């Protein structure tokens, strides 16, 4: 592997950090699915070479100033073993009130678990399957889309994911088809006692013109082994299609959760993303939405609750590439103890993207003197007929509100809980699907009860 020495890494990257990951790559590469597909081998090769050249980002990298990945260096993560396959589950998370199993795919340590998955309730023509199978059953669909939006270029973690890409969810909704049932994607991190475990789920969502789907990702942990989930999901939203993509991350606090979601929205399409972050020691959600056709609409919102030594990073990029599109971004978070949150929200309005309507709001509630938020909104506007606003607030619980509640007999802790819940519920209002909103609300309530 001479690549690391051939290319000089740009400032803000640590190529040496790539080494332990690349050593594993040589061991696992022959076993990766679709090894016979030359385009895939090329794609993995691009990811590999790019990651080898860059390594992990450092805090000298502008995009990683507030999130330090040095902890990953020390852990020398190993690829997931078969151990996860033996794990049985009494209960998997769902947003379904009745607890019934609808269409869902389940992945344990990044590996597909067919016996826990189901395509029940999907309309004819809709494909919901895992990537490893899709490479044999739907190679053209995958070849046409995979790696087209999430490019490894200056994204070392996307490059790492691309090098190792093996499995993950694939959804294809044909033109004009509405999927009524909520599709659930369940990712369980288990790991092993023996060593920290890394996996790189790769998702692909293709919603053809005038189609509609609601997708909920659950990321949960079982046990307390150290894991690294480094996921990438690409979402293609066709003309007039709408994709509602919700995610809740409740992994345990010894896990690392890195995620990159990249959407491309055609004319009159809607991409609606909401992420609720509760778990992980360190998490970063990157969401990129490119409004690539006129009158497209994207919502990129979320809520987070962190405490102890948790670190949560939200890095979003909304690209108004075409005229007459709207974007809305509402992030709210509660930070307690020594926890730290990062919000980086970039909106770019390209020169021809007239009549853009953009809105960004980021609000944080600090519950302790040692809690911290670093916020960096960035608006780059190159068109002149544009409506764009952004706001950021950082505050504490309101003393007047607390006193009012206590004066009515509500004890201090309950009163604080009510106010925290109220703060977050405003963000959850951004979730259009009622069943999802209700479920997410209950996760918020559980977090509070555990305080």
């Amino acid at each position, binding site marked *: 592997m001479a690549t690391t020495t051939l290319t000089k890494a740009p400032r803000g990257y640590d190529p040496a950090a790539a080494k332990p990951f690349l050593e594993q790559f040589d061991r696992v590469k022959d076993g990766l699915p679709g090894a016979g597909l030359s385009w895939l081998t090329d794609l993995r090769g691009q990811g590999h070479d790019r990651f080898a050249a860059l390594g992990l980002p450092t805090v000298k990298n502008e995009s990683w100033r507030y999130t330090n990945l040095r902890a990953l260096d020390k852990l020398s993560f190993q690829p997931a073993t078969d151990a996860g396959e033996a794990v049985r589950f009494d209960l998997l998370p769902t947003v379904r009130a009745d607890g019934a199993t609808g269409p869902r795919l389940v992945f344990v340590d990044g590996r597909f678990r067919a016996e826990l998955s189901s395509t029940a309730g999907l309309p004819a023509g809709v494909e919901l399957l895992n990537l490893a199978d899709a490479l044999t059953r739907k190679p053209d669909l995958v070849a046409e889309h995979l790696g087209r939006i999430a490019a490894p270029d200056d994204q070392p973690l996307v490059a790492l994911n691309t090098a190792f890409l093996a499995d993950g969810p694939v959804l294809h909704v044909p033109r004009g088809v509405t999927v009524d049932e909520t599709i659930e994607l369940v990712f369980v991190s288990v790991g092993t006692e023996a060593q920290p475990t890394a996996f790189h789920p790769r998702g692909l969502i293709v919603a053809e013109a005038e189609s509609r789907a609601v997708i909920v990702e659950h990321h949960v942990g079982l046990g307390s082994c150290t894991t690294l989930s480094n996921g990438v999901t690409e979402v293609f939203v066709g003309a007039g299609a709408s994709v509602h993509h919700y995610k809740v991350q409740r992994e345990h606090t010894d896990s690392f959760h890195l995620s990159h979601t990249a959407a491309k929205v055609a004319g009159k399409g809607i991409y609606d993303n909401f992420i609720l972050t509760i778990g992980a020691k360190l998490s970063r959600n990157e969401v990129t939405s490119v409004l690539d056709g006129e009158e497209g609409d994207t919502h990129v919102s979320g809520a987070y609750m962190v405490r102890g030594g948790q670190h949560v990073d939200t890095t979003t990029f909304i690209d108004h590439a075409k005229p007459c599109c709207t974007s809305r971004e509402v992030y709210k978070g509660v930070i307690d103890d020594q926890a730290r949150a990062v919000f980086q929200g970039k909106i770019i309005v390209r020169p021809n993207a007239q009549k853009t309507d953009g809105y960004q709001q980021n609000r944080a509630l600090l519950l302790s003197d040692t809690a911290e938020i670093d916020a960096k909104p960035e608006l780059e506007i190159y068109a002149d007929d544009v409506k764009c606003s952004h706001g950021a607030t950082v505050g504490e619980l309101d003393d007047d509100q607390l*006193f009012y*509640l206590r004066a009515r007999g509500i004890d201090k802790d309950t009163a604080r809980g009510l*106010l925290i819940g109220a703060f977050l519920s405003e963000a959850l209002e951004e979730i259009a699907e009622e069943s999802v909103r209700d479920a997410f609300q209950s996760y918020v309530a559980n977090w509070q009860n555990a305080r």
Partner: protein
Amino acid sequence: MIEIKNLHASVDGKEILKGIDLTINPGEVHAIMGPNGSGKSTLSYVLAGRDGYEITEGSVSFLGKDLLEMEPEERAAAGLFLAFQYPVEIPGVANTTFLKSALNAIRKKRGEPELDAMQFLKLVREKTKALSMTDEMLKRAVNVGFSGGEKKRNETLQMAVLQPKFAILDETDSGLDIDALKIVAEGVNALRSPERSMLVITHYQRLLDYIVPDHVHVLAFGKIQRSGGKELALELEKNGYAEFGVNEAA
């Protein structure tokens, strides 16, 4: 019911209450009248237990207990209620959720069973009707988007639901037109009983036409300057507070 003795309180080192003595017996309605800055609101906040007030001297006994030692929520559970001059807006908390949490918290502390959703709804519907409030106001976030009159009606509703033993009405008339004032006063009067006491704090006599007090006290410069019957209020209305050295025209 409540016995206030030589109560002194300061805010940021500045003494606001300079020796209040006041005893209210069960069933009595007392009015405290006074000009701006006389210490009226400070007295109500000190009694309700708000942070930021330093009690430098004196005592308050409420139903035989040391009120000043209690947390605000303990005071509420013991039966004290403050109707706020400026009810606080709480976005994101529905009025019903708030009322139910408050009622059940108090019932729990009193050792009474908590009400379930149905029982609570029945109770609160009955009370809202009497105050010409709509179901829609219950669903809205606490005081958010309420008019001045709606906020005061909402305070009265809380009082009706929580059934306190002793209620302090802090400038309940402020910001109310005459119709709203009548509705609120009716709501308050409906709660008068031989077991329940009230302290009505106001600048103007007008409110006392509708909530007729048994005793009236004049508060100025942090002390009760004079006490009397309800006729004292009329006298103040006529002569103002000049007699007590207060020049309100200034």
